[in-house]
């Protein structure tokens, strides 16, 4: 068996080995390399306990025998191979299972609370430990998306978007556990499928089936906006019934030819929206103009942006997750395509603290944890759901959430990014 010259290095100070080339068997796999490193570390420090490592060769995870990997990547076997190693990301461990009355359409979690939207026309607030805290009922139809706006002490602002064409802004006091509808945002003429609050928490954007994006103020006030339009009798009647004060959009962005499926804020001035018309558009909030159009060839279900790696991930109906660079001009190419799902990808989400990791949910009942450095296969498949998965989310406190058509919201504990993020 042939041998290869390899030099190991790591960014984690705890596991540094000598910077000398080692001769290793060409056919060695991750386990063998891992044991090599462990022995080296043990020789240096007797108190070392065994750690599983993952190996990167030229920025790609090693998943096959080393020689095969180098052959496929086109790396010369004559030179000394630089192999980076890091502690292996451990599998997400299921933690809680929160039962809902109906399908879960959306989830938004922060460090303390989890907010879910459900097809039973309510939104629910849960604690991260999995205790039901509050049911927010007020919509007349399915809640399609939920979002936290901001939290000031014990009072939180949250948003729910629904198929009944409204977005409700609620104020929730966690101490008294009271929820109060502050505003009813009217203006969309189709079901509101997606909302996103801007990083400062002063505005939010909504995308709807009526092909429009609308930007609203997220600051609660005590005055109702004037509703323009023909005053008909039925509407006035409803208006008296509605919750909260009416609010109208600050700005409407039109340009999509089909329903808007996903919207997000890249930064305070830039909105990114994905649509069924096979495009992702980047908008300027100040001017209300379109900046860039990224054109795909399938319906986009979900997008996610990572400020760490400045990449846009999109999940579409053709089972692939694609990574885009939103700053490139029109006609940009797909940077990377992650394909392992067998159904529509319904949700994608970048890790909040890791520039390479993202999680995706699909109609094939699977949640997959990906690393962009290994695009052929995901890091882990999470097969907890028994039906379609509609939403995923991460929290910075090492919690991964997914909800779907089996009425269950699962939380998983994943090996938080401290080892990697710290490195």
């Amino acid at each position, binding site marked *: 068996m042939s041998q290869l010259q390899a030099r190991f290095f790591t960014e984690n100070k705890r596991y540094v080995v000598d910077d000398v080339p080692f001769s290793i068997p060409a056919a060695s796999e991750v386990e063998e390399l891992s044991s090599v490193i462990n022995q080296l570390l043990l020789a240096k420090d007797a108190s070392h306990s065994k750690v599983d490592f993952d190996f990167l060769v030229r920025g790609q995870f090693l998943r096959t025998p080393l020689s095969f990997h180098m052959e496929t990547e086109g790396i010369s076997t004559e030179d000394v191979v630089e192999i980076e190693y890091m502690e292996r990301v451990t599998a997400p461990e299921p933690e809680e299972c929160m039962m809902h009355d109906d399908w879960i359409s959306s989830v938004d979690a922060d460090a303390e609370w989890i907010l879910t939207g459900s097809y039973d026309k309510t939104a629910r607030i849960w604690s991260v430990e999995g205790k039901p805290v509050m049911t927010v009922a007020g919509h007349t139809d399915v809640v399609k998306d939920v979002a936290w706006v901001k939290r000031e002490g014990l009072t939180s602002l949250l948003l729910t978007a629904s198929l009944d064409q409204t977005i409700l802004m609620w104020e929730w006091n966690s101490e008294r556990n009271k929820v109060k509808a502050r505003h009813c945002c009217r203006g969309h003429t189709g079901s509101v499928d997606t909302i996103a609050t801007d990083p400062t928490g002063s505005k939010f954007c909504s995308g709807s089936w009526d092909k429009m994006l609308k930007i609203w103020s997220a600051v609660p006030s005590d005055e109702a906006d004037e509703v323009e339009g023909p005053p008909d009798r039925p509407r006035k009647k409803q208006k008296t019934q509605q919750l909260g004060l009416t609010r109208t959009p600050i700005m409407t962005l039109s340009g999509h030819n089909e329903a808007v499926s996903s919207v997000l804020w890249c930064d305070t001035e830039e909105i990114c929206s994905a649509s069924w018309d096979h495009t992702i558009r980047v908008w300027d909030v100040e001017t209300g103009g379109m900046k860039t159009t990224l054109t795909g*060839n399938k319906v986009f279900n979900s997008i996610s942006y990572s400020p760490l790696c400045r990449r846009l991930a999109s999940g579409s109906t053709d089972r692939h997750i694609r990574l885009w660079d939103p700053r490139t001009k029109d006609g940009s190419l797909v940077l990377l395509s992650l394909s392992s799902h067998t159904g*529509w990808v319904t949700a994608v989400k970048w890790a909040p603290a890791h520039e390479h990791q993202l999680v995706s949910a699909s*109609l094939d009942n699977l949640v997959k944890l990906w690393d962009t450095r290994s695009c052929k296969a995901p890091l882990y498949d999470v097969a907890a759901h028994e039906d379609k998965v509609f939403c995923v989310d991460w929290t910075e406190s090492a919690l991964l959430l997914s909800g779907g058509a089996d009425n269950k919201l699962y939380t998983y504990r994943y090996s938080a990014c401290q080892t990697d993020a710290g490195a």
Partner: protein
Amino acid sequence: PEEDEDLSDSEDSVYSGLEDSGSDSEEDEEDGFFNVPGDVFHAVLNHYSGFCWVFLPTRLPRFFSKDMLMCPFLVLQDIRNTVGNIPMEWYRDFPHIGYDLDGKKIYKPIRNKDELDDFLDKMENPDYWRTVHDNQTGSVIVLSDEQVELVNRLQRGQFGDINFNEYQPSVEYFSSDVMIHPVTNRPEDKRSFIPSLVEKEKVSKLVHAIKMGWIKPRRVEDNSRGTFYDLWASEDSSILSKHRMHLPAPKIPLPGHNESYNPPPEYLFTDEERALWEQQDPSDRKLPYVPMKFSSLRQVPAFPRFIHERFERCLDLYLCPRQRKMRVNVNPEDLIPKLPKPKDLQPFPTVQSLVYRGHSSLIRSISVSPSGQWLASGSDDGTVRIWEVCSSRCMKTIQVGGAVKTVTWNPNPAVCLLAVALNSVVLILSPALADRQVVSSSERLLLGDQEAEAAEDTGAVWSEAEGEELNQGIRLKVHHPKAVHQVVWHAKGDYLASVMPDNSSHLQVLIHQLSRRRSQNPFRRNKGLVQCVSFHPVRPYFFVATQRSVRIYNLVKQEMTKKLQANSKWISSMAFYPVCGSVSLTVLIVLITCHLICRHHKKAVRGVAYHRVYPLFASASDDGSVIVCHGTVYNDLLQNPLIVPVKVLRGHVMTHDLGVLDVTFHPTQPWVFSSGADNTIRLFT
């Protein structure tokens, strides 16, 4: 003249050899004279090269040698050069120009004349033209008149001697005249009398070779039998054979022994063979005649079948094929037009993405809302369900109380209404799933202005739904006298047509106007069992499909425009290509659809659907598969539409021998929905 004589003498001596050397020596006594001819010859040499020079240098020194010894002053005078016939420029760089007879150098004369002197000389000297420069000696010679004359004669090609007559009469010894005396009186040789031994030897050798057979004597051609010509021999090389496809006429086989008047006995028939021959059918016989033996040619009777045989031969020549038939040797696969690869025709649905479960019986009809957000399905379990397309969530279930035959969404995006056909009722549903304004406008449309009952007796009764049904969204009921199989909307959304197939009545199709709650029967006569009807998506045409034909009616002119015969057994469904303008084109597509489907599906076709945007159509069949085809229609009608089956979608489970019952496309995306007998609706993307 004296000098001339000498000159000719000297030349004579040249010609006639050394005998004349004596005469030369006689004349040598006069020094100045002898010098001249050499120079003259030298001058002549320039014109007649090779003629005189051959002998001058060789002879003269020889016959001068003794004279030179005799006369010392002559030696002084004669500065004859001995270098021979060489280019004199070889001596150009030397002070001398050669060697004299004593081997002493001959020095070049001192030249003191320049070009100017030369020119002056040329102008002034009257003898300049006869002045010659001798290259060999470097001296200048002035020719005398005689010498000039000699040069002129030689130049003219005349004999040098003036007195020589080259035309003096001659005696001819050998002439045509026969002389009485022989020319010679010499007796003949003896050898002319005796035979030649050499010839004898040669002859005996030839005789021996012939005897031994080494030499064959020339064959004598025997022409006693006359000459024969092969008529056919050169035929193939005739003009006809130049035609590539020419086929030569069949030849009569040459006669054999059995046709002889005196055949060998084995060719004669035995009694058995003869009996067999007589029993056989004339066409089965090996020979058309019986071989016969005659003792002599005189006994042979006249040939009885002569006319018959000649006639047959003429027929043969007349009927035989004269041209080789070119059989086109084509690979049948080449005749199939090149179809584009399905990969290049994307997008089209390829995989099953969503399954809509909830119905408890087979689903006969599905319809997608114009916005593409909702999917309505009607099932035999008595419910109409409305699903969210993107999540396969059942949003509404409406109990209608009967097996639903057809459910169709109103194509007008400004209203949100569903038409449901079940039993003998057409229901108008308002699912209230759209914008509030759309919902209210559709409610307004339903309220309408309730006109007084139409005078026409169509049997259709309109009524409003009440109570529980109203809560479910059912707004209007149109009771028909017979079971309704199909209901279709007009593109504007106000009219709808319902079909009550009945072979025995003219009341098969009803057209309803929703806003005025009015029904009418457009046809007075029964033209066959109506299978389905359809409105043209853009133009005022109405299509009625009976079992085997499609009739097209113009709604404005109220007349039939066209009747089309389909070559399928049973038209079960119609669909329209959305963008084409003309009616003929539209129906063309319909028929092609029928035709194509007949070929690809193993069982009956239940439904066809066209995509509104993409050039796709789908057909559903009882064999449980949905075939998606890519159809390109060209603007010029001459070009056949290109239809490529791109995908067979399977997913439905066969239940009660029924597979897929209805198929429909998503209005904006290249997705196809199919409903089956297995109680599911499937979305393929």
